[in-house]
């Protein structure tokens, strides 16, 4: 949603943030309320829905058997795909959301490219021939600011929820290996998602900076730093966004801030995920 603000509205918001006061009364490093729900899409192997303030994101993980990359025969693949639903607003109709879709999916694959994030070896089946392809599809239903962070939360939660069916590898009569799925639906493997990164976007408004900007705050942002933070504080990808420039000292300050907030958020999410796993599924009817 593009929010159109007048100059004086922008100045009002920016001055507030320089004083440490935000439009909705939050502190500069407070997130909005996060609603988390797991297993919302039964057709997917794992799924989650995240509501971060007014932003609403649905993520689904589907496993399919395919061929591994020739360069890495023992590993599976993860493929990210982001879809901006036109439900979020008229500007995303048709090809309207394409730029954002590419931006988010590229950043996701960058952040997860490091082998320490997810153990792709688990996804390998027959070396060089077959492996699991994990398709991670993200559907953005509503954009109320800070969509990147919401997407990363949804992806991590969906991966946590993902149950990959166990597979038996048999040798056929001709001496070729064959893959056979088990009949037991409760026989599955779960990936460790402890090290999956969460994105933290910090927006610079005037002299101050805030996390989890609302749509209005994003409209007056000069520059933004997004970093993918792991639970141990390591950063697996980061980028400056928006058209402004930043001083070196403020970049360092923002990184430190990102790291702190990211570690905190990771901790909270990990503790909430096990709770959410057992919660009843409400979906969109709530």
């Amino acid at each position, binding site marked *: 949603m593009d929010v159109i603000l007048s100059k004086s509205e922008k100045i009002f918001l920016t001055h507030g943030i320089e004083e440490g006061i935000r439009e909705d009364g939050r502190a500069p490093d407070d997130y909005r309320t996060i609603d988390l729900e797991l297993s919302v899409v039964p057709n997917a192997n794992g799924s989650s829905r995240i509501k971060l303030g007014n932003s609403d994101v649905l993520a689904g993980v589907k496993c399919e058997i395919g061929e591994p*990359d*020739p360069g890495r025969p023992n590993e599976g693949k993860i493929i990210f795909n982001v879809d901006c639903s036109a439900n979020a607003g008229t500007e995303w109709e048709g090809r309207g959301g394409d730029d954002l879709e590419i931006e988010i999916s590229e950043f996701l694959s960058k952040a997860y490219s490091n082998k320490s994030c997810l153990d792709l070896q688990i996804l390998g089946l027959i070396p060089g021939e077959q492996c699991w392809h994990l398709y991670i599809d993200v559907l953005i239903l509503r954009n109320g600011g800070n969509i990147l962070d919401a997407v990363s939360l949804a992806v991590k939660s969906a991966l946590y929820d993902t149950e990959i069916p166990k597979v038996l590898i048999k040798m056929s009569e001709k001496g070729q290996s064959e893959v056979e799925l088990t009949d037991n639906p409760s026989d599955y493997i779960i990936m460790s998602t402890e090290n999956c990164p969460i994105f933290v976007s910090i927006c610079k408004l005037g002299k101050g900076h805030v996390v989890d900007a609302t749509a209005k705050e994003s409209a007056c942002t000069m520059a933004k730093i997004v970093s993918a933070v792991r639970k141990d504080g390591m950063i697996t990808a980061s980028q*400056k966004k928006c058209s402004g420039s930043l*001083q070196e000292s403020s*970049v360092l300050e923002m990184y430190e801030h990102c790291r702190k907030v990211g570690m905190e958020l990771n901790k909270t999410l990990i503790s909430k995920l096990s709770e959410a796993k057992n919660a009843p599924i409400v979906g969109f009817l709530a």
Partner: protein
Amino acid sequence: MPTDTKRLPVPETSICPSTLIEDISAKKLPLISNNKRRDDRLCTQLRHVYAKLKVISQAQGSAYIEIGNTKVICSVYGPREVKKRDEFSMDGQLCCDFKFATFSCPQRRSHLSDNEEKELSQQLLNALSPAVCLNKFPKARVEIFALVLENDGSAFSAAINCASLALVDASIELYDIPVAACVRYDGVNLIVDPQLNEEYSHQESNLSEENGQVLVAYLPVLKQISALNHVGCLSSKVLNQSMKLCIEATQKMHTIFQECIKEKVKSIMD
């Protein structure tokens, strides 16, 4: 441009032979031995830089840059009037297109922009726009096309450098000249301006966990960072160090570009 995916008769399932060759060559070597890198450079040494302005006669401004074997050409058109009424804005607009030539990388690139190129176009825009006096050309648009002819590492930083030189050549008013540089960290050493076999790629298997690459575009006079991009797992301490190294490298580059621009101006004056 027509989007005909069948224009080049390459089979869909073709594999580049280089991926099948067991890496006997450079990739297995350590990045640094005896304080020297794989190409005998020191850790903080840049490759040789060659830059030339005005290489495409039809364009308003253009530049060609070689950093080692990495070659990028860039052209700037405009400012041109914006035709569509609903695209008017009182600030000028920049429009960037970043492309790898099909033959530029070890693996063949498609002639259509893939997602990576589209994303880098957006980043190029973000890197340049803080430096351009957009208020000087209201209701108009400047188009920047960067084409990587050969990618031997640090191609995107070379493209930023090339684009800013092309903007200078097109006499578009700038607050400063954005200069970019890359730094690679392999778990032990920080090396400036990595070439292709030194660049970070998640494909490499024998990596230590902490490992990555940082790109910074810097405005040397204003002392501001206009683009920042990193991949790979880094702690904030290493991130800070590599940012500092990047900035040092951009300052070296800046003097080279200043010379290049000075010469160009002199030749026009004569």
